[in-house]
């Protein structure tokens, strides 16, 4: 069945709520409205007000209450209306949730999923375009995923819901309706912690995730055709824990790595990935590990600014050519 990325999310929620009566969703406008992006559409009708809970505008409460329910065995899926507002629940995530099991000496668990619609390129400006993933990828006790395909959106959400640990699930708004895919019928999951090789190649590796997977694949096709460059594209999918094996395998194979993400350069996850490669695949490198990312500023509103700030296919093509020529 062909499903968009957002429908894939929606169907994962339906199926998991069906499968396990301890799964419930909570957030702003998730009920009758079905969420600002319709991710929770139909859930209210199917599962009722007790399992599809509209909250006041209280992000810290949403996460905190989710934690309280989770330690008692529930599996809440908590929606931030936009990932940008996760800053308002920051303490609950990085302190209450991430340390919960540790400070209970392993005798408690916190199976919450935080769904965070993130990403730019939709004229969302400073507060509806953020890619906050790297705030969380430095927090032990959390898992962080960022699907780029409809298949992964569904499969990773299912894994996140079934995981006994807090998982931050970044879904990219620009992909909601632009990405469509034939998904298998029936239950399937995508494992957390496993990257996916989207394209094999020999000359150079692009490592990316989320909103920049599609432009990276486009760029790979362009340089393949125009420059006869064979480019490998690795989709990280999970950002914490990183799939170090897959990262190092592609780096060792091609010796030239370009890391691409829509998040800003400085402090983006690319730094961590580059550091891992430079430490553990040093002898294999034929060129410096390069990063292409959003400029080190906020995601401005006006189209010419947004355009120059964000990475895109052309910029990736240029970066690939540059690196290949090293």
């Amino acid at each position: 069945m062909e499903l968009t990325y957002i429908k894939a999310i929606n169907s994962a929620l339906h199926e998991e709520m069906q499968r396990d009566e301890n799964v419930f969703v909570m957030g702003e406008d998730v009920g009758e409205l079905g969420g600002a992006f319709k991710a929770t559409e139909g859930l209210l009708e199917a599962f009722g007000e007790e399992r599809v809970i509209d909250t006041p505008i209280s992000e810290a409460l949403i996460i905190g209450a989710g934690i309280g329910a989770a330690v008692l065995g529930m599996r809440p899926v908590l929606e931030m209306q936009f990932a940008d507002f996760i800053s308002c629940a920051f303490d609950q995530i990085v302190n209450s949730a991430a340390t919960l099991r540790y400070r209970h000496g392993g005798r408690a668990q916190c199976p919450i999923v935080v769904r965070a619609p993130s990403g730019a390129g939709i004229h969302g400006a400073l507060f509806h375009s953020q890619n906050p993933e790297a705030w969380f990828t430095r927090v032990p006790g959390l898992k962080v995923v960022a699907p780029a395909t409809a298949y992964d959106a569904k499969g990773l959400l299912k894994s996140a819901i079934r995981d006994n640990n807090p998982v931050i699930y970044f879904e990219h708004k620009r992909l909601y309706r632009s990405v469509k895919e034939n998904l298998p019928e029936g239950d399937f999951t995508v494992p957390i912690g496993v990257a996916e090789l989207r394209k094999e190649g020999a000359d150079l590796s692009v490592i990316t995730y989320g909103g920049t997977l599609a432009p990276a694949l486009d760029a790979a096709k362009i340089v393949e055709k125009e420059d006869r460059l064979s480019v490998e594209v690795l989709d990280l999918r999970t950002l914490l824990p990183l799939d170090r094996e897959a990262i190092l395998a592609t780096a060792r194979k091609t010796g030239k790595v370009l890391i691409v993400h829509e998040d800003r350069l400085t402090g983006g996850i690319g730094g961590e990935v580059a550091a891992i490669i430079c430490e553990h695949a040093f002898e294999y490198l034929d060129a410096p590990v390069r990063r292409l990312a959003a400029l080190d500023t906020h995601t401005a509103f006006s189209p010419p600014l947004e355009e120059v700030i964000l990475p895109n296919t052309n910029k990736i093509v240029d970066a690939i050519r540059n690196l290949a020529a090293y």
Partner: protein
Amino acid sequence: MAQPEGARVATEPAARVEQELQLYYWMKLIRAFEERVSRLHRQNKIFGGVYSGAGQEAIVAGVCAPLRDGDFVAPLHRDLGVFLVRGVDPGRLMAQLMGKETGLSRGKDSFLHGGDLERGIFGSTSMLGSSLPIAVGAALKFKMKREKNIAVAFFGEGASSRGDVHEAMNFAGVQKLPVLFVCENNRYAYSTPLEKQMAIEDVADRAEAYGFRGHVVSGNDLLAVLEVTERVVAKIRNGEGPALIECKTYRYRGHSEHDAALYRDQEELIEWQSRDPIPGYELFLEKKGHDLKRVREQIDERTQKVVQAAVEYAEQSPFPKPEEALEDLFAPALAAAPKK
């Protein structure tokens, strides 16, 4: 109330008469401007999130009228009117919405996030409620510097559920700061009705839990809003500490231009539209002896001109240049510091 109609305009002080008309002009200008914004949004000339304040014009006009230069105002996302009433050039405001170089934020941010501190307007982030601590900080400055200014923070009843609102009000109460909190209670936060937001009816009831007074007023009644604001603001300026005014109102359009608001009852909308602040105020003008027909024509003509000019100005304004993306991030550090 028994004076002969038609006679008043002549006998009252000119300033009062002028203010009466000015308030009318503002409400009409806000409505006309926002209608045009909706249209431009449908035409893809304005993009991103656009939030209409249609139906709530009396609040902005009535609260801002008694304010002075130097007062600090943090509007909410629906308060485009604050910019107009406080004297922001309509052209620059329209340019802001279109992401143009001449806009308040020079194209950096969208809609009302570009502030104009020269006119005492703070550009809030999207994070609802987060501007209340900031307004409280402005009030703290006024108190520290013995300035007779006040800070005003607008917020929706939806935002009232945020922790920041609590922290801000509590501290304002402790420090008896010159700050006015204005809650625009339009009964919905996006799709979420009041009863899912709070177990009480009046946000104003919270004020006493912070040690100051809360007032409830019809937000669709310009005179009522004006009256309570004038009274309350005078006290705040006088050092009597913060206050909260809750304005009961209703949002005509969807939450944003993207929202058809199907979750609402049509009856409810009609009921509230029959409390529209503009006809109500027109009745007042008539009773006060204004020639309403003429006044309305004149003001409609004027608002149309102003809006049209604003659109033209904005459309003719250039977009920012790409290299500006990295500008405006940092202020120059004060002094070049000598190295050790």
